[in-house]
């Protein structure tokens, strides 16, 4: 398997870079939805009310989980496409 890399080093690096970029985008969203809206930004967002409480409370107890779910499937779909593009799929 090391051979694939040796033959194809440049495309291997580009593949890895594409993966890292995608991960970075996903993790920024991951952080904002949970630590951001659900916690650190909650006092700032307290004016936006959601069913008896506020947006921050909703993100902490519901929204963050839905965002996580979306992110994992988004990553899996995008990554499969990237695998194909670089010809490294199984």
């Amino acid at each position, binding site marked *: *398997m*090391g051979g*694939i*890399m*040796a033959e194809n080093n440049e495309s*291997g690096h580009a*593949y*890895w870079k594409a*993966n890292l970029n995608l*991960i970075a985008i*996903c*993790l920024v969203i*991951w952080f904002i939805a*949970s*630590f951001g809206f*659900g*916690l*650190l930004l*909650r*006092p700032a967002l*307290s004016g936006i009310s*959601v*069913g*008896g*409480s*506020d947006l*921050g*409370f*909703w993100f*902490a*107890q*519901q929204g*963050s*989980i*839905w965002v*996580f*779910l979306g*992110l*994992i*499937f988004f*990553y*899996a779909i995008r*990554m*499969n496409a990237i*695998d194909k593009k670089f*010809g*490294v*799929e*199984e």
Partner: protein
Amino acid sequence: MDLQTLTYIVVGASFALYIGIAFWARAGSTGEFYAAGRGVHPIANGMATAADWMSAASFISMAGIISFSGYGASAYLMGWTGGYVLLAMLLAPYLRKFGKFTVPEFIGDRFYSSTARIVAVVCLIICSITYVIGQMKGVGVAFSRFLEVDASTGLLIGTAIVFLYAVQGGMKGITYTQIAQYCVLILAYTIPAIFISMELTGNILPQVGLFSNHVSGEPLLTKLDQIVVDLGFAEYTSFTSNPFNMFMFTMSLMIGTAGLPHVIIRFFTVPKVSDARWTAGWSLVFIAILYTTAPGVGAMARMNLMDTIQTGAVGAEDGNLLYESRPDWFKNWETTGLLKFEDKNGDGRIQYYNDKSTSFAPKAEEFGWKGNELTVDRDIMVLANPEIAKLPNWVIALVAAGGLAAALSTAAGLLMAISSAVSHDLLKGTFTPQITEKQELMWARISMAVAIVISAYLGLNPPGFAAQVVALAFGLAASSIFPALMMGIFSKRVNSKGAILGMVAGIATTLLYIFTYKGWFFIPGTAMLPNTPDNHLLGISPEAFGTVGAIINFAVAYGVSAMSAEPPKEIQDLVESIRIPKGAGAAIDH
């Protein structure tokens, strides 16, 4: 049919099903014992992972903690789901590509050192045992209620059951059994939640019900805030007093989730790298069904509990429930010792309020209340919830079966991780490579048995509610295993010295911090400092310290590696190869 008989039938039937499946799928080879022969579809694997993952802490304990801490307990919700994002992107696909059976095996190979492998085994055993202690507390609670015995007896009976099928089945048995357990536990969790949500808000989905209007017309959460504030408690939805600690705690649970060996091990059982990504997603789908229901369960259970005790206006002479006329569920839980009433003012009525609130104290005095009279172990809330809400008996019986399924499935998965670490990594991989497959299997079963006994013993005096004990296990995983795995994949520069010292430094500081406040080896009475926020370093609670441990681990590993030689060429090639999915099929066995 009375409740007790019905519970026996439902629980008995579910157990017969699990044991039947475990027997039918009895493992024949080590490959089947550890990794189910790698023939499991992502959806099936996702369901099994969800059952494995959702333990007594999630099922029995978490909603109870939410019930009493409100917003503050959101750390559990975000932490235990957000970790899957890290797992799916940072670990699972690469570990599957690597294609071995256990976590220490990866660490040993990547850091080209049997010392690294042994250190990883030790970390893994520490995390898993701590985790199983939490499960045992949950098993004790569930069995004590179900058999109407005290919590310790319940625990011992539960231990015997865990022992029976975990030792028998191995991973293949466990995977299929866990699918059945998932179905039982998710029905048991959602059915009562739907009933109660309908009752209180008219909304069928608890996820929506939590944020809709109570049948009285007021928003449910506003009403709940009012009810608890009227009795001197903190507002249910109020912001945390220590956002920094909540941040550290959530982070610790997230990275711990991604570093727990019994979860990671599941990603070894999928056929392809892309399946590892899908499996993470499907697992979270099945987990999210419970986790998005839990906040509704917590809030509504609290409301029903308060309404049951405080039957009339606060302070009115007949506003509180007469102890004489307490409902059956109250009596049943009294038998377990997990619900206690003490008539401090001798009026024969139950006063449940916050006697630590200084602003409420003058009112309490005016009412003639002499202190809070009701002690509720938070771990009983989920199991008692359907009874408090007066749901039909079959629902209550189902919840008992679900709680047991959750506790047993996770305990089995963890024991699996422990036994494979001992027999596969320590014996076969390091100390006695000449043993046969049959002997290896025997040792796997022996180490399981030993782990069960130790954790049952420590579970008799757990260092907190089930979810809190489990949170400690996550902190330990966060500080040791996750950083080592992540650096092993994302850095070619981190070498064996760095990884070993990083893991040791991370887990040692975290353990030291935990033991300082929770007692040495969790033995009661040996804590060095009282476990209160003003004694904590920067206000970080022991449950949240895993994040600090992880930072120490990363810092030490990078620092030491920078000052010593880079890993050999073939290791750098190995890192390059695990980053690329192609060729995973070839790496199935070794």
